């Protein structure tokens, strides 16, 4: 079985919100009609987004680290939001594991949003139905597009390649390898929702330099050199 998902690399996300805007642009222009924006030029703009980038601060100043954290529907393998839906509007596609809402069936009761611990669902206040990330289902399943474009809008937009997309059930896919080799993890594992999306942790880039990398202990000239040195410049001090 296929389970499409995103893997988000927190190590390289710079918090530029490119994924947020490209998501909004693609999904507001598509077959489902606009994604609502209310009061967009006013003091307090609000609207429905499938994807948000949040920022967290780890540690106490000056030992702090800023973590940008993109958040969208995780396409859980045990989605608690699906069985609670009274109409069947919320469902998980059996062929690729994407969790979707049928906007023509949804009655806007918001019950599914209560049953998502991640706050991934947002009501469209204009259409009065529940909306959420579709992994750009209209794009990834569009056989008319060239293969390289059959990816979610956010993935293509990310300037740092912090977003990987693929089948997490295929052990050899880019996403599975990344999860396996780079410590990919799930959010709030305590609820047993088995999110398909994973996050790659921050990694400190550390460089180790041995002393003999700084002094040329292997200087061949030194071996046969019979001179007694008294602190003057030698060939070892030449900048190469």
């Amino acid at each position, binding site marked *: 079985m296929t389970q499409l998902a995103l893997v988000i690399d927190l190590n390289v996300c710079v918090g530029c919100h490119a994924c947020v805007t490209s998501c909004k642009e693609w999904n507001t222009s598509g077959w489902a009609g606009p994604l609502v924006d209310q009061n967009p030029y006013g003091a307090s703009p609000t609207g429905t987004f499938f994807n948000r980038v949040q920022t967290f601060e780890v540690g106490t100043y000056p030992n702090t680290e800023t973590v940008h954290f993109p958040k969208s529907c995780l396409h859980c393998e045990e989605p608690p939001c699906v069985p609670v839906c009274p109409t069947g509007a919320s469902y998980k596609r059996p062929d690729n594991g994407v969790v979707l809402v049928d906007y023509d069936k949804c009655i806007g009761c918001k019950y599914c949003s209560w049953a998502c611990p991640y706050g991934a669902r947002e009501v469209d206040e204009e259409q009065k139905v529940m909306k959420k990330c579709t992994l750009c289902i209209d794009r990834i399943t569009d056989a008319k597009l060239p293969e390289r474009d059959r990816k979610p809008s956010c993935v293509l937009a990310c300037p740092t390649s912090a977003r990987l997309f693929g089948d997490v059930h295929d052990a050899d896919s880019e996403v599975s390898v990344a999860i396996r080799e780079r410590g990919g993890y799930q*959010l709030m594992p305590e609820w047993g929702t088995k999110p398909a999306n994973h996050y790659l942790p921050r990694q400190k880039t550390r460089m180790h330099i041995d002393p003999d990398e700084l002094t040329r202990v292997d200087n061949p000239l030194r071996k046969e050199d019979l001179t007694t040195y008294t602190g003057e410049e030698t060939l070892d001090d030449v900048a190469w």
Partner: protein
Amino acid sequence: MHPAFSVIFLTTLIGAGQGLYLAMVTGQLYAIPNFVEAQVDRFYAFGSLVALLFLIAGLVASFFHLGRPERAWRAAAKWRTSWLSREVIILPIVMALVFAYGFAHWMEWTGTIFEVGALRVDVTLILGIIGTLASLALFVCTAMIYADVKFLQEWHTPLTVFNFIFFGAASGFMLAAAYSAYIGNPLVTFYGTWAVILTLVALGSRLAHLRRNARIKRKSTVQTAIGIRHNTLVQRTQGATGGSFNTREFFHGRSQRFVANVRYLFLLLVFPLPVLLIGASYVTESPNLPILAFLVQFLGLMAERWSFFAEAQHPQNIYYQSVA
């Protein structure tokens, strides 16, 4: 959680309606062995009519909760998995049974169909028993909508179900007492006594619930929410400045003080005041006090439902702590 008035009205109104209906059937059952005086059929018929009006009012309120009420019929589809769907199915069934019970009394279809020992079974008795079961099932469905959401730890307990049943029954019997008092029926004492008993049981259940919720250990933390191991972890931005559905639906937006005051208010209005009013009505034989008792308790129950929502803290709130 944000307390939505549509849901507050829905749950309190249908609770009182179901409770009143249970009170009517209880009155009829008690009259069989002559524990209380048997009433003319019109008494049960009018009582059922009032119960039906409460159920209809609740149903109307519920439509205000939906974004797309014209599609509400679709909500009957997923009864296998969704308690909301189950409620949507059972509510009209209860309404139909309440109507049928009242109508059978109105038509005086009290001819014996068959006898079980000394018990003479007629149409109203059969409808009353089926209606009672359906009504209890409706209480369970309504409450399970809340109790079944495991993420809302304050609600995810059998106490939620007990509360809904006992609050509904208490206010329904209170309403029955008010109704009897209004028409000058002597059953007011019988219903008043039951209303007080049920109110006290509800008090016990709700206090146990409050006590449990005061000690809840949260399953999710900001550490598990974003998966970073550090004790000092604070949100700096939530990705939107003007709020979002997530900030509107899951926060009550009031101070802790306000929430605490509403709690004291409902503890006062639902429990001691109606009980005192019913007690006073025994002594003074006033026809107005039971009506007042019902109104006071009903108001209190609306505050209780508000509080029930405000108490619940959704784990998604961890992601919405700071604007910028």
